[in-house]
């Protein structure tokens, strides 16, 4: 198989490698944030139940607040990724492609 790099102008190939790495870094960072957020919560659920059970105001305990926070946070992280991908990543891909 012919290596594509031999045909490609070198600067395009560099740009591809850089963008590929950037996407990997963004995806990994967001995944780690997500994993820390969820397993931070589950870790407290598993090993710090009394803390999670703190009643903050009548009708609201810490676990309800944090639990709803994980749900909303998951969506917001997805949103951050989608906005980045649509605004930065896709145009960069198109620039290299043309």
């Amino acid at each position: 198989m012919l290596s594509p790099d031999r045909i490609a102008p070198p600067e395009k190939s560099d740009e591809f490698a850089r963008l590929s790495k950037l996407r990997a870094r963004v995806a990994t960072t967001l995944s780690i944030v997500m994993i820390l957020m969820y397993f931070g919560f589950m870790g407290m659920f598993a090993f710090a139940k009394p803390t999670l059970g703190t009643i903050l105001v009548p009708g609201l305990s810490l676990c309800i607040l944090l639990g709803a926070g994980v749900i909303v946070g998951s969506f917001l992280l997805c949103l951050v990724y989608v906005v980045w991908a649509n605004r930065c990543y896709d145009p960069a891909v198109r620039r290299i492609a043309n």
Partner: protein
Amino acid sequence: MQAANNPLSVTFFFVFMALTLGITYWAARRTRTTEQFFAADGQITAWQNGWALAGDFLSAAALLGIAGIITSNGFDGLIYSIGFLVGWPIISFLIVEPLRNLGKFTFADVVAYRLRQRPVRVAAAIGTLTVILLYLIAQMVATGSLIKLLFGLPYAASVAVVGTAMLVYVLFGGMLATTWVQVIKAALLSLGGLILALLVLAHFDMNPLHLFSAAAEKYGDRVLQPGSKVAGSGWDAISLGVGLMFGTAALPHVLMRAFTVPDVKEARMSILYATGIIGSFHLLVFVIGFGAMVLVGPEAVAKAGGGGNMAAPLLALTVGGSGFFGFICAVAFATMLAVVAGLTLSGVATVCHDLWVNVVRQGHSSEREQLTVARIATVAIAALAVFLGIVFEGQNVAFMAGLAFAVAASANFPALLLSITWKRFTTPAAVASILAGTFSALLMICLSPTVQVDVLGRNLADVSQAWWFVPMKNPALVCMPLSFAVAVVVSLLTREEGAEGAFREMHRRIMFGASPEAVPDR
């Protein structure tokens, strides 16, 4: 108390059936190629696909089951709600774009992209079909008993009705009909959930905190605090979390929907929409569960039978009258249908695309032949689902849904992730890790109290003395790292130069897609 006496629920049921069968008739004329049968020709929009993903994923357990757990235990039900959501961002960051650009109909397309087709496809099919079968059994058994409870239909007849309806959708309408069944179901489910939650909140000045404090006044602060319902030991809870998060990110019927949209951007948007829809729905279910606790009462729910599943329908009856009760029952029915149709279709894709086309025929099979195989597989899987649903009547199969997530996390997720991210990943490593993940999860569950005590009815004190006893009810915490370790060790012991050489080309395709004109330097 049964809805058999309720003409409204039967009417809703017939309207839903007529509508979905009409759509199937319309879709059948647009289902002539495998691309149409398995991926709706890639013509689904992101918005539709987001709703369809929610319809594919939210099972009856999401409304009836979780609401029931919250009604009887309070906060703990939210652990499941959160667990069902947290896999979606992972799909979005790590999985969906490579999947959309490398694959055709199944996630095995991605794993096999650089590796040798036949061994990888066979192993992936074993992992996938295990997940689908476990999930399908859990769904069919739940369906049979829920319809018996909601509509008063005999168990075997309920299973047969669901099996037949799903067969008709998938066989004639393929992905297009399945998508619309899922979209309609997700819309009905969200609408039903929203109305129910609003009717509950109307009793509490539209303030959820007033609802929660009313619950705490009646049943104590413990209902707002974490209990021990969800998992025995602390590590078991973590293990449950691992299974739910990474299992969701590798469920075959969810991943398959990435192929129904025109491009990567639409695929990524549809995951965002699905995350929003599923997340909002779970927040509504939390309100519904507490509403049933305060307005219906855990005692009344327990007395209605079905292991707490009647919490949401009874609440509907209390706050909305018998018409709304009928609506919620019909929605629950639609929910089950949409999930089993999606599961069946992804099972058919695995049998036809992975096993028949790429293993038996080694990539050379005519469209006509593929469609014939797909339709035979549809009939076979539907018949198997009905058969197993009837065989397992009355058995405790609730653990099978959780096990399906654990197997997906252990068997599919490591191979999928490593095939995209690690250049040195090899064919023997993929096969070994998929098989290690599948069988270690199955073995661990068989040796755990889930099977030994809950299913076989042995005494916990006796089995916990045995040398083979596994104290954990959720195997993912052990099996997923094991599968990763097997993959790494076997990769380092073997060498596959072709796969390494194709790594860069694969990343090019992940970025630019399959169309050759978009790739700059080829």
